[in-house]
């Protein structure tokens, strides 16, 4: 095969046995790679109803067909897929950097980590030689320390490592898997799944060639992509970076502030991308094979957190900044750095701190609960301390490390009113009370609260649609984006490059064929996007999800935006949500309960999964 390595590796962590099986061309074409292939392998390799933190939940690591090639942004991706300990549905998180390319060169499209090691181990993938290594000396170390130690131990400085920190070891449900020091497969608790297997790290050295099917045409295509990536579609990422969003969202009344109490932040200037770049950013890095470079590295020059060095993106900046009412950039950067240190999803962790602050402000949590931390909104030092507690699972941090949904259940006293999550996954930095097209995408996303499954906020923020209105027909717009985004995450190209595929599926289908030699029309690729979206839905249905799970965070449906801004008074009612879901399910060709029909599965070539929907559809008929 070209592009693909053509091989799937299984590692039994209990016995240390490994097995390599071929990747079929059928699976390659139908599920592409990345999250598509990962979710299919998850369905194939699990029984319904398993505990996500049990040995029965495999941790699936995939690359994409472009990984290891020169495809700009596409050459470096990898994804983790497993049942999510946060949502009990499908969990998936992508990351970039250098790790994915190395894994492809070692010769694998996917690695399935099965069972649980008896004691802490790391897996050392040295091309064809795969072995379990003792990780006793690494236990408790940060991902960065782990990476350095493994390179030192094995004596090869080009080894790439993906690892968990203390949070993953202690099964914090918001734990991430960190690679290449600064990159994270952050969302849906993949780090906890890894920790539950006693798997500290995956170390990879790959020295094999990665070749493409049509090299000359491919290089011409890459040259064109390089030119496009120097153009207007990527300016944001190359200049201020995603933190540019802070002032944009603020001016549109779409910047969730103090745990979705407000939608504008009086301290926005001090946490803006402009301020960040002027005072803190010292270097911009690129991932392997990228022609854009976006990774803004910030250093705190003075004060109590002096010397803190971390990568910055909008989402964690928002989560620890406006969302916690904190306007001190040094503390925000420190909190982000601690997330990398403990191996936490910075987005979920910032949400949790804001949730705890909201509980504290409402007397649900007191100083006694917090070991003396005064968790008022805006208390920057207390925020930093709380991240330490979550990372170590100390005191209140032990409960909070479970994520806002479970923490609220344990705290009780009405705390669930402040737990902003969808399906158990914490919210992201878009105030969807006034972004009602994006809200559809959030409600139905198969991995829970997420802007990255659809990007429909773009339609709202750019004024393509009336963002305060709910109307029939909107769902179609969201679906088109979802299908594209799933392909992006299955090829594993970077979302930041999405604007450079001027002709959408046409560009991507051509790209795919040049790399793999597998013929693919734009229509087939779009249908593949639909197939993979349905696959995520099918997994969740198999695990017992229903229409009720397509909900929105409590504050989005209870608290109209109070600020004197364009979005004042906006929120989402149950009727509006029902209209959104009816519109979406109909446009997807699903039942009113959100179940894909047999005809739909046939159309998508997923007939072998009809067992998942049969009972749901028949039950419905019987009750009629």
């Amino acid at each position: 095969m070209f592009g693909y390595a053509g091989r799937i590796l299984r590692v039994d962590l209990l016995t240390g046995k490994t097995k390599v099986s071929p990747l079929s061309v059928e699976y390659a074409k139908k599920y592409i790679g990345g999250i598509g292939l990962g979710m299919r392998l998850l369905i194939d390799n699990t029984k319904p109803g398993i505990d996500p933190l049990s040995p029965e939940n495999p941790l699936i690591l995939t690359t994409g067909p472009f990984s290891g090639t020169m495809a700009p942004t596409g050459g470096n991706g990898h994804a983790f897929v497993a049942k999510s300990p946060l949502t009990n549905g499908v969990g998936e998180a992508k990351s970039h950097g250098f790790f994915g390319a190395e894994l492809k060169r070692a010769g694998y499209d996917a690695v399935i980590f099965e069972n649980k090691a008896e004691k802490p181990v790391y897996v050392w993938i040295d091309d064809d030689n795969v072995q379990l290594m003792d990780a006793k000396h690494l236990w408790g170390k940060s991902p960065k320390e782990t990476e350095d130690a493994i390179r030192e131990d094995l004596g090869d400085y080009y080894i790439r490592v993906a690892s968990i920190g203390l949070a993953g070891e202690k099964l914090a449900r918001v734990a991430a898997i960190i690679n290449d020091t600064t990159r994270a497969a952050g969302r849906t608790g993949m780090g906890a799944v890894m920790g539950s297997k006693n798997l500290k790290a995956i170390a990879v050295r790959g020295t094999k060639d990665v070749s493409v099917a049509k090299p000359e045409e491919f290089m011409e295509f890459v040259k064109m992509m390089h030119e496009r990536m120097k153009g207007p579609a990527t300016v944001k990422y190359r200049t201020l970076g995603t933190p540019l969003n802070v002032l944009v969202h603020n001016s549109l009344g779409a910047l969730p502030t103090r745990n979705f109490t407000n939608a504008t932040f009086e301290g926005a200037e001090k946490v803006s991308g402009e301020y960040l770049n002027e005072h803190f950013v010292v270097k911009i890095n690129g991932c392997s094979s990228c022609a854009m470079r976006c990774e803004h590295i910030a250093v705190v020059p003075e004060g109590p957190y002096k010397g803190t060095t971390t990568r910055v993106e909008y989402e964690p900046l928002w989560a620890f900044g406006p969302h916690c009412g904190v306007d001190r950039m040094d503390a925000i950067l420190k909190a982000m750095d601690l997330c990398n240190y403990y191996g936490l999803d910075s987005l979920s962790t910032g949400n949790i701190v804001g949730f705890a602050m909201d509980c504290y402000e409402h007397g649900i949590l007191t100083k006694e609960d917090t070991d003396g931390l005064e968790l008022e909104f805006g208390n920057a030092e207390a925020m930093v301390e709380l991240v330490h507690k979550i990372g170590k699972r100390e005191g209140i941090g032990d409960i909070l490390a479970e994520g806002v949904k479970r923490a609220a259940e344990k705290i009780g006293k009405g705390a669930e009113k402040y737990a902003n999550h969808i399906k158990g996954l914490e919210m992201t930095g878009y105030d969807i009370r006034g972004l009602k097209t994006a809200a559809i995408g959030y409600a139905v996303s198969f991995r829970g609260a997420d802007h990255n499954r659809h990007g429909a906020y773009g339609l709202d923020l750019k004024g393509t649609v009336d963002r305060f209105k709910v109307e029939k027909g909107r769902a179609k717009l969201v679906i088109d984006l979802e299908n594209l985004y799933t392909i992006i995450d299955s090829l594993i190209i970077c979302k930041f490059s999405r604007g450079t595929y001027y002709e959408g599926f046409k560009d991507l289908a051509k790209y795919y064929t040049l790399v793999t030699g597998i013929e693919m029309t734009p229509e087939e690729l779009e249908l593949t996007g639909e197939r993979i979206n349905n696959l995520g839905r099918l997994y969740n249905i198999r695990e017992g999800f229903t229409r009720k799970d397509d909900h929105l965070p409590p504050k989005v449906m209870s608290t109209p935006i109070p600020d004197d801004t364009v979005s004042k008074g906006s929120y989402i009612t149950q009727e509006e949500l029902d209209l959104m879901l009816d519109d979406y399910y109909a446009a997807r060709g699903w039942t009113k309960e959100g179940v894909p029909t047999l005809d739909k599965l046939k159309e998508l070539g997923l007939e072998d999964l009809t067992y998942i929907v049969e009972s749901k559809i028949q039950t419905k008929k019987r009750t009629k």
Partner: protein
Amino acid sequence: MASIHARKFVSADPDKCVGCCVCEYACSYEKEKTFNPVKSRIRVVRLDSLIDMSITCRLCENAPCVTACPRDALTQSEETGVIMVDEDKCNGCGWCIEACDYGAIMLHPDRKVVFVCDLCDGNPKCVEWCPEEALDFVTADVLAQKARISAVKKLFQEAIRPGTT
């Protein structure tokens, strides 16, 4: 004419380099028709997230690699300064690798002989592909000129009116 000062080599500006490894991919494609950094004549180093720099052969005068070779497998072109490997003589012993201060000469993973930058016959593909224009194909003289200019610019930053540079 072919003095040391006229020899051009590939040099990376660490202020511009972002560590993306496009140079490695371009090199391995140009030379080996595949994508594989271990077959690239230029390699990237990143330190502590803050420093990126790609490194390749500097065409040293009295090149230590040539001197170190016990089998006379390496010679240096009088004209361009490029290190030439006689693959029949080289047995991959690695003395030259040890002698190079820059890690610029490496053992080829398949052929088991050493390989090094050959400047792509005067048109280095890494320089052509670098998306950040961080790579220059320059002589030592020009490098020094550039360094002087940027040093003076930094010293007199405030004195230089915007738009005059």
